[in-house]
């Protein structure tokens, strides 16, 4: 546990000592928020205010998904630099390096999420799910971030080059977040796409987030989201730790 924290601290030092990264994790999610709300808002919902209410929960999910790509990139870079050899030759827990990475990235994700929510509230977003909803949304955001981190960690330890990691992360996250209810309701999409949107975990995460933040149906989407997070974490957590050890 303390080894995980030592390694998480190291990853956070990377962010804190690098102004570009700090700006990246602060400004980039805001950029998404402002662009989507003011460019698409009127066309999709008739008013930017109305779209802001609809899209913010989805944008939080999207921001988390994009943010965790850093997990893949960071782990991969550690392999490239030979740092993983150093860590593997130390008497530390097998999972510590990846867990340290995930912990740091979770904190980063929490920071980005907080910034978006704060600005969205300033722009007129209102919670309608009460304090329980706010708390639930925060927990859900962390849980989704946690699950996605393990998925990305697996990409990071499995793929060879930084370029392929970036490409794979992008190819995975972009269709998943766009072909979902993250940005628009699925009703206007063709039937075959709706079928995919329905089972897409991003849809489930976004619906659960909406329920918690806007006060809609909560129980089913939250349970489904929890199941997805647990599944992703178990499968990719195990795969990642194994791959981490055996990668030569």
């Amino acid at each position, binding site marked *: 546990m303390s080894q995980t924290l030592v390694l998480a*601290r*190291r990853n956070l030092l990377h962010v804190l000592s690098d102004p570009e990264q700090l700006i990246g994790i602060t400004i980039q999610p805001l950029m998404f928020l402002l662009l989507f709300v003011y460019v698409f808002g009127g066309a999709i919902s008739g008013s930017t205010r109305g779209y802001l209410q609809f899209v913010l929960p989805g944008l939080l999910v999207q921001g988390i998904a994009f943010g965790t790509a850093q997990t893949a990139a960071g782990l991969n870079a550690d*392999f490239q630099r*030979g740092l993983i050899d*150093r860590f*593997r*030759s*130390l*008497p530390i827990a097998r999972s510590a390096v990846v867990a340290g990475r995930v912990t740091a990235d979770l904190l980063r994700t929490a920071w980005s999420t907080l910034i978006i929510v704060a600005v969205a509230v300033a722009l007129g977003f209102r919670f309608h799910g009460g304090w329980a909803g706010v708390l639930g949304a925060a927990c859900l955001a962390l849980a989704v971030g946690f699950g996605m981190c393990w998925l990305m960690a697996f990409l990071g330890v499995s793929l060879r080059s930084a370029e392929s990691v970036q490409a794979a992360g992008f190819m995975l996250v972009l269709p998943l977040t766009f072909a979902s209810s993250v940005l628009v309701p699925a009703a206007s999409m063709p039937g075959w796409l709706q079928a995919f949107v329905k089972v897409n975990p991003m849809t489930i995460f976004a619906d659960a987030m909406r329920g918690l933040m806007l006060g809609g149906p909560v129980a089913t989407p939250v349970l489904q989201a929890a199941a997805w997070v647990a599944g992703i974490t178990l499968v990719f957590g195990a795969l990642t730790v194994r791959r981490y050890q055996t990668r030569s």
Partner: protein
Amino acid sequence: MDGLAIQTEGLGKSFGSKRVLDGLDLEVRRGNIFGLLGPNGAGKTTAVRILATLLAADTGRALVLGFDVARQPQQVRRVIGLTGQYAAVDDLISAQENLYMIGRLLGLRPRAARRRGGELLAAFGLADAADTKVRAYSGGMRRRLDLAASLVGRPAVLFLDEPTTGLDLASRNELWDMIRELAADGTTVLLTTQYLEEADRLAGQIMVIDRGRTVALGTPGELKGLAGGQVLEVRPLRESDASAAARVLAGLAGAGAGTPGTEGDLLTVQVPDEELVTIAARRLDEAGIPVSHLAVRLPSLDEAFLAITGHHADADAGDTETELEGAGR
């Protein structure tokens, strides 16, 4: 087993159809510097990676301080330090933070980890750059920090995988001094190198390996004997004297010298000892051939190889290991 820090028996490893280690037997006594010498692709890095628990051997077994690397990896990791071919330090944080991180990972308390890091930075001449990000370090500084990083836990056995490859002469000498000091303090060092000179300067015992197999084992002196002693180099002042100078060198055969050859404008001949240098200098002088360069050096790895194995260091095998190493990062 007593007195042995490292012991391997029939260590074998293949990557695909490529046999990288082919039954390597190794014995390193405690407190010794042991040099593993060979060309690229000889299996040096693979042997070190197996001993450092980073790679599983296909056959044979390896013990470090009596711990089996396959069955007791955590115990092995507690007693070893590893400095790889490429400096494995985090270049996005400072040197101080690097050493602190490793100290904490090894279970030191925060204050003790800071202190240990400070000690090592001072000992390795990096105290002034302690708070500088490693990214800004020179190659020599990185290598020193990498060595410092492998010493945080005061390992009893240290693996140095080509520690000076790519360094300039001054940095190389500095690193050599540090390695000698470590051994003087009782650390067992297994050093891999492509340079006979490096092995000669540092190691008490040298094993020459080729294609995963031992081809020679001995003290530096014994090995130099096997490799045909040293090489005398002569460069005549006037190019027109080249053939006359070659005749003079050929005349040293009676005193045990080899057949003269050329390397560019240099005439070279293998000599069993340095005494022949004086004789060569006198005869060249008597023959009225002024020289601009007259020196003895150790044979290169390739020359030693040729003498020991009868073939040149195999560059073909080298590519495979380099590729695999590259892929592992």
